[in-house]
């Protein structure tokens, strides 16, 4: 029944269906977010009722200050840590993935089969947790930020390589040849000729992977435990047991953590969509 409008050429709006869809979307998707916002600005007593109601008195500033101050400004430390983690791991990921994708796409060799296989494995195989800790321990990187950054790079690079490879395939080889004739070294060819052309796909990779790393809970939980190193997702999780009677603060925390992805969404909606659906057509 809902396939009807698809075959229709003239834009004739189906108002009845639209009304139902919008109504359902408000109940299912908007109300939970409204609930977060409303609870975040309530006072403590009203928030503990857990109901969906208009706040009696707005405590935005007070709740914000309280949640930031909680446990010696833990949230600030966590935001700093998460920012370092996200920026560093995504930066490394973008450069290394572009290098791999470039050689993988351009150079035909017997290694391509293996590299492609490894890239796909990285997408499918669940990482072995404790052995990773073991390796990090041997390298002296367990419980350190550099260790976690490298872990995020290792687990996220496959997806980045796939996106870059698909894009590099659209860059004509004549460009490489021209640069080579002009005497560019392989290093310069890549970093000064090819890499700048990857801007649009690089933005996609950056946006998608930043959101992923920023929202990551499992890897910090395993590889960077401890309060001093906490990332925002870990602090949120820890707050949830501490704030059982202070739902206004818990939801203020959730609200604050939702803001960075929201900004990404508002500015880069198209990029995100392009990145996440790139595999859909080819399969």
């Amino acid at each position, binding site marked *: 029944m809902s396939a009807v409008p698809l075959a229709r050429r003239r834009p004739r709006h189906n108002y009845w269906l*639209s009304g139902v869809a919008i109504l359902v979307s408000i109940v299912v998707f908007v109300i939970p977010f409204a609930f*977060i916002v409303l609870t975040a600005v309530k006072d403590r007593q009203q928030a503990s009722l857990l109901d969906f109601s208009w706040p009696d008195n707005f405590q935005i500033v007070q709740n914000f200050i309280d949640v930031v101050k909680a446990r010696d400004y833990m949230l600030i430390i966590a935001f700093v840590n998460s920012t370092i983690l996200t920026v560093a791991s995504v930066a490394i990921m973008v450069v290394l993935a572009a290098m791999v994708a470039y050689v993988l796409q351009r150079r035909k060799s017997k290694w391509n089969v293996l590299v492609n296989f490894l890239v796909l494995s990285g997408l499918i195989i669940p990482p072995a947790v404790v052995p990773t800790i073991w390796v990090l321990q041997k390298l002296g990187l367990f419980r350190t930020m550099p260790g976690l950054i490298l872990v995020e790079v290792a687990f996220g690079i496959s997806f980045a390589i796939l996106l870059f490879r698909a894009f590099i395939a659209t860059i004509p080889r004549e460009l490489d040849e021209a640069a080579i004739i002009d005497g560019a070294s392989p290093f310069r060819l890549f970093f000064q000729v090819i890499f700048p052309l990857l801007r649009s796909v690089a933005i996609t990779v950056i946006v998608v992977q930043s959101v992923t790393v920023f929202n990551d809970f499992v890897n910090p939980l395993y590889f960077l435990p401890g309060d001093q190193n906490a990332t925002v997702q870990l602090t949120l999780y820890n707050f949830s047991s501490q704030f059982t009677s202070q739902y206004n603060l818990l939801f203020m925390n*959730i609200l604050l953590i939702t803001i960075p992805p929201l900004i990404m969404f508002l500015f880069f909606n198209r990029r995100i969509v392009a990145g996440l659906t790139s595999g859909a057509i080819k399969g």
Partner: protein
Amino acid sequence: MTTTIHAQRAHHGEGTGSTAPDKRRRKKSPYPSWFYLPAALIYGALFLVPTFASFYFSLTRWTIFDSHFIGFDNFVDFFREPALVSGLTHTLVYAVVTSGLKVVLGLLLAILLTSQIVGRGYLRSVVFFPVLVSTIGVGLTFTVLMNPEKGLINESLNLIGIQGPGWLTDPDFALISVALVDVWKGVGLATLIFIAGIVSIPQEYLEAAKVDGASSTASFFKIVLPLARPATVTVIILSLIGGLRSFDLIWAMTRGGPGFTSDVIASVIYKQYQAGFYGLSTAGNVILFLVVTALILPLYWFLSRKEVEL
């Protein structure tokens, strides 16, 4: 690859290659294989080595510093302990339920959102946004909404005279409740992939079918569904992989409880790790690896083969 470089060096008669050679005569590939190196080091050390090591360590009694080979005892323990075995079945139920619902709802939503309806941009945004939100945040929010006495969901159900279940406290419901929240959060991605698939179908096919008098149901089943197959395959594979590995949502909402009724392999791995049973935890990892590959590889092969036949 390395052999060709050696061969070239031998040809030039230079041992180290560090002395500046004649640039025009050197025929090195402009696509140097050392570009693989930094990524390969990180990926190899932190992904490949642990993956291979997991097969060995799953056969040991292990405290990070010192391992003791005990054969298949960890696996025997795993399958003897009902709480752990149920983790395996829960994982399968969770993965099948979430990916099944994501395929069906995602396809319906995609058809809706590619049709002529008012507020299409708004609807697409609102369906997709939860994908980008922190899983822990979503989990905690829905834990509150699903509160059996005070939660918004049961309050609303009360208004229309339905006594809602204890979503997360009732052993029969806990796993399914978490799975439903997973669908809520993830259906936007499935929808997006289906939309991309549907948009790529040439309009002429649908027009031709219409001219030939095909009903809309017929053109859905005979045109849209078969041609959106790559999208369907992507959604199934992606959501199955995600569902089988799922940990953070379950951990944020129930921690595997009540009892062990919503434990999955990933949460068992974490619990055994916390308890210090590193060998057993790693055995859980190996089991997860086997489950994932045993499901995904044949499925992928089967689904993409069908595609060729079409």
